[in-house]
């Protein structure tokens, strides 16, 4: 096994870098071994480049195909693949772009990379069954605070510094190409997720973003709501809960044994909201 691990570790380095096999390790009767190695080197860079181009189509449009090739080459050198599943490759692009000397002046690119990665991951994310509202109806309201909600596996919440959703939309084939976007017009609060089969990028209120992010922290709905109300007094739990259930963002919950603090939270106002089974 050691021998196999050594040989293949060496082969890996030969493919990814300009390292060479020791003389006579390879047998190629009809052409120099270097040519055979070249096929693997080309495949390696080509596959990863194409994967990045598939995951980051808008960035590729923004910087141009030729520059994207250079960018991908550098990215590949710094971030080798870690999975046999290529759909997982390329997640470090935002961070890479933030430090890449040739794109540092395009300050909105990392935000765009975050958005495109969220879209890419949402496309391949697991399915989740829609939440059955009758389950909630069986939970006594005093236990609501202890509910731990699970978001759809495709969800990414993004608060960006730049208006990347508008730029993204302008670069879709179906768009009327409105490139009149003021980069200084402020950032987006976005939810990227799959509703049914299609991936959606939707602008959501900052309060909702905060609340959903809190729910993601695996804390009860009571604590999440308290934290949201502290920052956004206008937040309305009843509306939010109903909305995110109806839109397939909240897909499941676990009931916690409510701690006294959670149980004490006044979750709903006098209207006594309970989502009606549809």
């Amino acid at each position: 096994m050691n021998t196999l691990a050594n040989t293949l570790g060496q082969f890996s380095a030969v493919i990814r870098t300009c390292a060479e096999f020791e003389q006579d390790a390879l047998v190629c009767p009809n052409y120099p071994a270097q040519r055979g190695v070249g096929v693997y080197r080309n495949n390696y860079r080509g596959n990863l480049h194409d994967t990045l181009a598939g995951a980051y189509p808008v960035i590729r449009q923004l910087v141009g195909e030729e520059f994207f090739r250079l960018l991908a080459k550098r990215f590949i050198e710094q971030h080798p693949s870690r999975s046999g599943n290529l759909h997982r490759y390329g997640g470090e692009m935002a961070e890479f772009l933030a430090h890449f000397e040739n794109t540092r002046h395009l300050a909105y690119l990392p935000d765009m990379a975050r958005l495109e990665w969220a879209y890419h991951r949402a496309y391949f994310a697991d399915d989740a069954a829609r939440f059955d509202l009758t389950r909630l109806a069986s939970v006594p309201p005093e236990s609501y605070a202890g509910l731990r909600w699970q978001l759809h596996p495709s969800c990414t919440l993004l608060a960006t510094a730049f208006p990347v959703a508008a730029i993204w939309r302008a670069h879709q084939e179906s768009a009327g190409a409105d490139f009149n976007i003021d980069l200084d017009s402020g950032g987006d609060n976005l939810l990227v997720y799959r509703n049914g089969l299609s991936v959606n990028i939707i602008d959501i209120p900052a309060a909702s973003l905060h609340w959903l992010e809190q729910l993601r922290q695996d804390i009860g709905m009571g604590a999440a709501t308290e934290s949201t109300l502290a920052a956004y007094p206008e937040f309305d739990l009843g509306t939010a809960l109903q909305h995110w259930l109806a839109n397939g963002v909240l897909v499941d919950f676990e009931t916690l044994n409510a701690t006294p603090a959670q149980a004490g939270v006044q979750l709903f106002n006098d209207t006594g909201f309970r989502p009606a089974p549809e």
Partner: protein
Amino acid sequence: MMNTPASKSLPHIAGIGLRAPHYLEVLEQRPALGWVEVHSENFFGGGAPLHTLLQVAQHYPVSLHGVGMGLASPDPLDAGHLRELRRLCDTVDPASVSEHLCWNTAGGIAINDLLPFPYTRDALSHVSERVRQVQDVLGRRILIENLSYYVAFRESEMREEEFLSELVARTGCGILFDVNNLFVNAVNLGVDAQAFIHGIPAEAVGEYHLAGPSLMDGCLVDTHSARVFDEAWALYEDALQHIGKRPTLIEWDVEIPALSVIQDEARKAQLRMDAL
């Protein structure tokens, strides 16, 4: 030994590799395709890809063909990858499941390709153990495909067909005989194609693959980008004679043409099967 029969099996006729550009046409027009094969990893997770495959599976027998398991990798098998494949099998109930005789991950770094390794006795024990692991988790027999490769290792202690035969004996797996891979290896590396055809256990062969390579810089590269070469058809005929009729797949992955072109190649395979 793994003897659990799959609940379904591929028909012994020609099928095609189904790729994204043809999904819509296949679902809307339901052309006469014997069966279809897809790359397993493209359907890990859910959403549109899986939804499409499940629709396809209602009309055609489906074969799941993995490109990312890395059976010969020195690193441990990726348990998450295997779990995803198991889940996909449970969801799709495929007629066949196959993987390649290759590696892809060493020292935590993956090369997303189908890479050759030295055919040594150590490697045989290693790969056998992992084929058993995969078959145990999937609860079914899998087919292992012979590889196209561009370099061979001096360390090798046996030929690929000897390695495969021994793998079959040790694990009960089947063989996916890629005729084009053999043709490519014969041209590039002087592999003895007849010795391969006669060297693998005929009864273990569960499927054939056919595709067209491209010539780059004096090296025949297995690009799946052309019609099947005449020399590969000739080897296919030899295989039919010696091994027998098996489900036969036409693969096309680069510069994918109209579906009718691939169907045309499938018809040529079918004619050769019918002529037996």
